[in-house]
């Protein structure tokens, strides 16, 4: 059952279209992540759902109710603001009780105590927000919204202000709380790792539009656009052309004189101008074409950079036509370790490749390797 449904939602600020004809369904009780770079329209989308920004067009529904024109205080929706926006003149207890008091609920003290326990802030009731750490303020903001049992809880980069360690801890914590209360969470973030680890469904947003939407594993395994392929994890995208023919459900493509195949069900391209995509960890290295296992495809090149990062080694392999492919080799202890400048072949299984639409004239796009640790020294 869809709890939140956006249809054709649009917001323009003058000439700028911040949110562009957005269509979205969020299922009841799910943890939904809206992922995108800064400025792509995530906050604007959330604010329209909360009623703080008026849409230029489109519709917002919760269950069967159209809430598009409803005042914010009449919507069954609560928000955890990026700035927390805690009331500085009220105690933690009164901050959390705020929504209950406005709706003249009973039994407020017990409800607040339960909620503070849920976010592990027992005993913090009498304190003022200014006396709390960032992580504690974040929990108060969460408790203050969640205590109202909203149909949908909106979270705008709730962990954005926390340092990395605390952030990872709060991710687990937030996920635990969501599972415990069963409220639908719409979580906005620009951190792809955060979106993937927490959400049941991730919507990747770009320039006011949803590029792709689905379970994280599916999005990662088979990205639908070059933006998703490079924003969600890394990808090697080679400029290629799909060729006619093909058998056994395999689609032939040519790139730089080489011929490859990709399973038809992994083709997301509508035209013959395509990107042939392979994730860096799906590429393997061998000393010569003879060493490539059967069923695999390969390109030849030279190792131009090696970065050892503990769990894996990241190689850059320059192909004959000059593009540098990124290759992640896990540190299993059994792997071959080609040296800098060594001629190698990078190979992959066709079931790990994918085809995406490529704008006319666009060249290769490859992931920059993380060269933070360099073994050449």
């Amino acid at each position, binding site marked *: 059952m869809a709890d939140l449904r956006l249809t054709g939602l649009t917001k323009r600020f003058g000439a700028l279209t911040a949110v562009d004809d957005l269509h979205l369904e969020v299922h009841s009780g799910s943890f939904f992540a809206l992922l995108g770079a800064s400025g792509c329209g995530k906050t604007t989308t959330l604010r329209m759902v*909360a*009623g*703080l920004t008026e849409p230029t067009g489109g519709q917002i529904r919760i269950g069967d109710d159209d809430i598009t024109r409803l*005042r*914010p*205080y009449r919507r069954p*929706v*609560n*928000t955890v*603001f990026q*700035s927390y*926006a*805690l*009331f*500085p*003149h*009220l*105690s933690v207890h*009164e901050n959390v009780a*705020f*929504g209950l*008091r*406005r*709706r003249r609920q009973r039994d407020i003290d017990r409800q607040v105590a339960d909620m503070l326990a849920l976010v592990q802030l027992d005993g913090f009731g009498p304190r003022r927000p200014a006396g709390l750490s960032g992580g504690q303020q974040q929990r108060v903001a969460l408790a*203050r*919204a969640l205590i*109202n049992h909203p149909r949908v809880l909106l979270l705008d980069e709730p962990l954005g202000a926390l340092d990395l360690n605390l952030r990872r801890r709060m991710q687990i914590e937030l996920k635990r709380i969501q599972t415990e209360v069963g409220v639908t969470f719409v979580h906005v973030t620009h951190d792809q790792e955060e979106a993937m680890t927490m959400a049941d469904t991730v919507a990747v947003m770009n320039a006011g539009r949803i590029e792709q939407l689905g379970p994280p594993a599916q999005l990662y395994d088979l990205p639908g656009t070059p933006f998703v392929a490079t924003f969600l994890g890394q990808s090697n995208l080679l400029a290629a052309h799909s060729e006619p023919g093909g058998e056994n459900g395999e689609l032939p493509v040519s790139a730089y004189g080489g011929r490859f195949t990709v399973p038809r069900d992994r083709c997301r391209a509508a035209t013959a101008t395509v990107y042939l995509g392979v994730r860096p960890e799906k590429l393997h290295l061998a000393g010569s074409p003879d060493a490539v296992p059967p069923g695999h495809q390969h390109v030849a090149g030279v190792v131009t950079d090696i970065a050892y990062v503990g769990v894996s080694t990241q190689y850059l392999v320059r192909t004959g036509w000059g593009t540098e492919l990124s290759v992640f080799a896990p540190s299993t202890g059994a792997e071959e370790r080609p040296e800098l400048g060594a001629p190698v072949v990078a190979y992959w299984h066709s079931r790990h490749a994918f085809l995406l639409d490529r704008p006319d004239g666009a060249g290769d796009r490859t992931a920059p390797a993380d060269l933070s640790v360099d073994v050449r020294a």
Partner: protein
Amino acid sequence: MPYLLILPAGLWLIVFFVVPAVQLFATSLYDPSGSLATGYAMTGDLGNYPRALGDYWPQLLRSLGYAAVATLACLALGFPLAYAIALKAGRWRNMLLVAVIAPFFTSFLIRTLAWKTILSDTGVLVGLLRHAHLLGADGRLLATPFAVVAGLTYNFLPFMVLPLYASLERFDRRLLEAAGDLYAGPVAGFRRVTLPLAAPGIVAGTLLTFIPAAGDYVNAQLLGTPRTAMIGNVIDSAFLVRLDYPSAAALSFVLMFAILVLTVGYLRRVGAGALDAVS
């Protein structure tokens, strides 16, 4: 070191406040049968106080009443103004602030005289009000309590607006969005968030308006009649016309004491609670 830093202000206060205050208090205890010509005898007579209060309590109460009404009027006019300047004015903000303090560039006396012209029986305002039948054919504004309170309100409005502005300027309007998100409509949001956070400005503004307004005599003098005389007018004439120094000094102390009691009571009740607001 800190003592050295407060020395100049301390000296100033001693020379220009403590010494005259002691002198004034001594004067209030002089024998009232004396005069400037024959000199006063120091009798330590506290009787000046009940005598002065007995004669002039209506003016004292009137002063406090006018000042209270003018303070409320300043708050009613000043709050929306300060709110608009602090949160809505954008790039007009500084210009509007200058406009608020611009009247200070002319003398208090001149400004009050200007009000006399504005409110005069032959002025445009009275003409308009009579035409609209909001005022009877021989109704007037000048020489009424309204004129005095209006003058006080006009003259002390900046003392209300500036502290209000200072506290609203720091107000984070995202808090109102949060309140709206938590089921507070505009009225509840104002009452539960804006107002408590503006409380320090409200307390400062009301005190800065009420205290000088209660002791003012220029507005009652220029815009009122003897029937609207305030305690300031009584003290003024006792000192400068009747030359009755002991009564004038006693009345000055009564006024000071009354304001002090009211201020402390106010800070206890509203101030402390508001500055430390928990709903």
